[in-house]
């Protein structure tokens, strides 16, 4: 792959990435969340288009414009989430989309069963081709995915974090399978966060960062410390305008919070005027923690103290009444009612205050919306504009405006700047400064390490649902945070 470029509105996901994978090697693709790994693989597999660049297969340029085309070229991808139909048998899943046919055009079940059995034997796994997939364990389902990817001649196999749901012994058998494949000359692209896996199965490793490839190394020649440095890389730039104030009184205290299996035994303290950053890998339990803190999901156990008083939140409504708001991870599915007007969205959490006998005062509603639109400089032709038609950054400002209008004192922000442009990011950082200066407290989850480092006063690192480290921003470095998140001592 040469010079691959792919931009989404507001973000350049890939900016001239080169990647060369050799037959028979396991090529590990490393990078932080959002570095562009998954987008690159979507381009390779035809699931996503590209804006520039070329792809060559065995020396010949190829045009991969659809998943079907990728399949016929022998390029297969196994996504992080399994894509199987639970009610169908293993064999039926393997041949879904390219069923073996009899002379009459009917599905040739006997042949599918036979070929599935051969594939499983080739992989060295014992799976009954007739077993419905829902009755198989996760590791076995993963093997069905592998078998599906290998049906017909596969030449390039991409695996996106295949071990995230597997136990150690299942991982071992997956690695054995990968070795068998490379011995047959299949090129494997292996996407992972886990450095130990790089050493166990990788031959070469390419590090992506901010949509560019930073380096390609032979695995033996790169130390873990060097890889971490390459992944983190960026200078913690001056464009994080955090102005820490003097931390005030205790605002929110969490003691031994558990919600299995997402997180367990999480404790922390948030003071007025403080930004507590929460770092960790995808799947470390950050979002689940944020939702539970905001009353959106229930806690199994543990205590939340708000202004020193133990509270049991019965739901988001209860949380809002107590001055706690959540800026959710995905503004489109959780933060906004896209079909409704800007003003309606801004006023939604404040509706009880805007009503008399259940009737909304339009003057009060418009005044509230106008204040937020002016204050946050939300670019919209009118208050009546449907939120769906605003840009990502302005949509995010509307979500933020909802909570400012509702006068929350604790704001839980899950990926506050995801998918928005640089200018809007700066404005959101400034708002965080203003909020904390006014005595509010912010819990900020972010997958962007520089953002966590640049905007937090203290940092909590989660790993597999537990607190792996807590540090003051002054003593935190990208390497320290990343090491704690990845789980290896630096």
């Amino acid at each position: 792959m040469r010079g691959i470029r792919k931009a989404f509105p507001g973000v350049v996901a890939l900016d001239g990435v080169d990647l060369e994978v050799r037959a028979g090697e396991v090529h590990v693709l490393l990078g932080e969340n959002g570095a562009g790994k998954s987008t690159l693989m979507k381009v390779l597999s035809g699931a996503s288009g590209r804006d520039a660049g070329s792809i060559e297969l065995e020396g010949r340029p190829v045009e991969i414009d659809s998943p079907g085309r990728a399949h016929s070229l022998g390029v297969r991808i196994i996504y992080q989430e399994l894509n199987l139909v639970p009610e169908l048998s293993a064999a039926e899943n393997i041949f879904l989309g390219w069923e073996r046919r009899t002379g009459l055009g009917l599905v040739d079940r006997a042949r599918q069963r036979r070929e599935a059995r051969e594939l499983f034997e080739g992989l060295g796994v014992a799976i009954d081709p007739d077993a419905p997939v829902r009755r198989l364990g996760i590791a076995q389902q993963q093997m069905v995915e592998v078998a599906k990817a290998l049906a017909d001649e596969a030449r390039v196999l991409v695996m996106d974090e295949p071990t995230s749901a597997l136990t150690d012994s299942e991982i071992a058998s997956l690695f054995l399978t990968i070795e068998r494949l490379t011995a047959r000359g299949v090129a494997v692209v292996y996407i992972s966060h886990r450095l130990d896996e790089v050493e166990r199965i990788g031959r070469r490793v390419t590090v992506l960062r901010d949509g560019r490839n930073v380096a390609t190394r032979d695995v033996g020649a790169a130390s873990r410390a060097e890889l971490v440095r390459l992944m983190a890389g960026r200078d913690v730039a001056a464009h994080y305008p955090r102005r820490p104030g003097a931390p005030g009184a205790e605002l929110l205290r969490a003691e031994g919070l558990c919600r299995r299996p997402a997180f367990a035994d999480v404790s922390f303290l948030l003071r007025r005027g403080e930004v507590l950053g929460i770092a960790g890998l995808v799947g470390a339990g950050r979002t689940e923690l944020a939702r539970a803190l905001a009353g959106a999901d229930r806690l199994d156990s543990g205590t939340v103290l708000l202004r020193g008083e133990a509270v049991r939140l019965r739901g988001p409504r209860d949380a809002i009444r107590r001055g706690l708001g959540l800026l959710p991870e995905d503004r489109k599915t959780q933060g906004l009612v896209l079909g409704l007007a800007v003003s309606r969205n801004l006023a939604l959490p404040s509706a009880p205050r805007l009503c008399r006998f259940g009737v909304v005062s339009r003057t009060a509603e418009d005044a509230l919306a106008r204040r937020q639109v002016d204050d946050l400089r939300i670019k919209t032709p009118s208050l009546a504009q449907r939120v769906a038609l605003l840009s990502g950054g302005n949509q995010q400002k509307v979500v933020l405006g909802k909570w400012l209008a509702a006068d929350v004192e604790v704001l839980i922000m899950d990926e506050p700047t995801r998918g928005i442009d640089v200018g809007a990011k700066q404005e959101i950082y400034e708002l965080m400064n203003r909020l904390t200066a006014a005595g509010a407290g912010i819990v900020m989850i972010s997958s962007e390490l520089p953002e966590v480092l640049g905007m937090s006063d203290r940092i909590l690192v989660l790993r597999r649902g537990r607190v792996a480290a807590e540090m003051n921003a002054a003593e935190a470095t990208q390497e320290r945070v990343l090491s704690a998140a990845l789980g290896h001592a630096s």
Partner: protein
Amino acid sequence: MSRVGRALAGGRELGSLAGLAGLCGLLFALTPHFLTVPNLLNVLEQTSINAVIAVGMTFVILSGGIDLSVGSIVALSGVALAEALQAGWPPLAAVLAGAGVGALAGLLNGLLITRGRLPPFIATLGMMSVARGLALLVTDGRPVSGFDAGFRSLATARVLLVPAPALVTAVVCLAAQFVLARTRFGRYVYAIGGNEEAARLSGVAVRFHKTAVYVLSGLASALAATILTARLNSAQPIAGIMYELDAIAAAVIGGTSLKGGSGTVAGTLIGALIMGVLRNGLNLLGISSFLQQVVIGLVIIGAVLLDALLKSPDER
């Protein structure tokens, strides 16, 4: 989205209104009997029952649900009302009894959906059968007929020539329009239908409001049953069959999205009028009732197809 598309989508009710006006114009050209005062009043009276049910249905659809039980609730609450009248209850008490039955059936729908987590289609499909069966059981399958003139005046009275049912419909529409446009309840119904999760995270009591829209739909059905019973001087356990489809059609022709979150009472009223005028016109033209069904079906499909074509791909 193109400017034209946006203008048309924004003025969705205007589009429906233009359709209604065009239809009236066509009928005026085709038959001298259409544009006469008695006939138009007749159309209003005939439309009122569907319009009232469709307004209740609009709340349900706006919240992202569907209510298939309205026709059966019309039968059950009509029968309850009639039995109460026959037992000698004063008309007002009997009407309230019918309303209570409708509200109760709606409440059960709502609880099955919000507490039992049934899909609205399934819960109300079940209620459709249960309510119909109860209406048949209570009456042994026979109509309950013969009420005093005081009760029947609910349908027969005229105020400045306008039939009482049309006035009732107007009041219902105005009240519903006010609730949807001006009250917190209305705001929340739109928000829930537009994005239930976002509404919940914004502090909306989702389960309460979702339950309430089914209660409203049940009440609207009971009101329709009252008008129907007064008009026919009889309550029939087999009344209201297929009313759910007429109500859904009126809402959809009027621009309410079955996905929830968008639509208006004005649109629904126009949708109901289009269906009423169409039926009336086809009758006046002597077109067979079999062919009428075909035409009405085509109008429903055409209205929604037009909507889809006017929207840009990113909104579909």
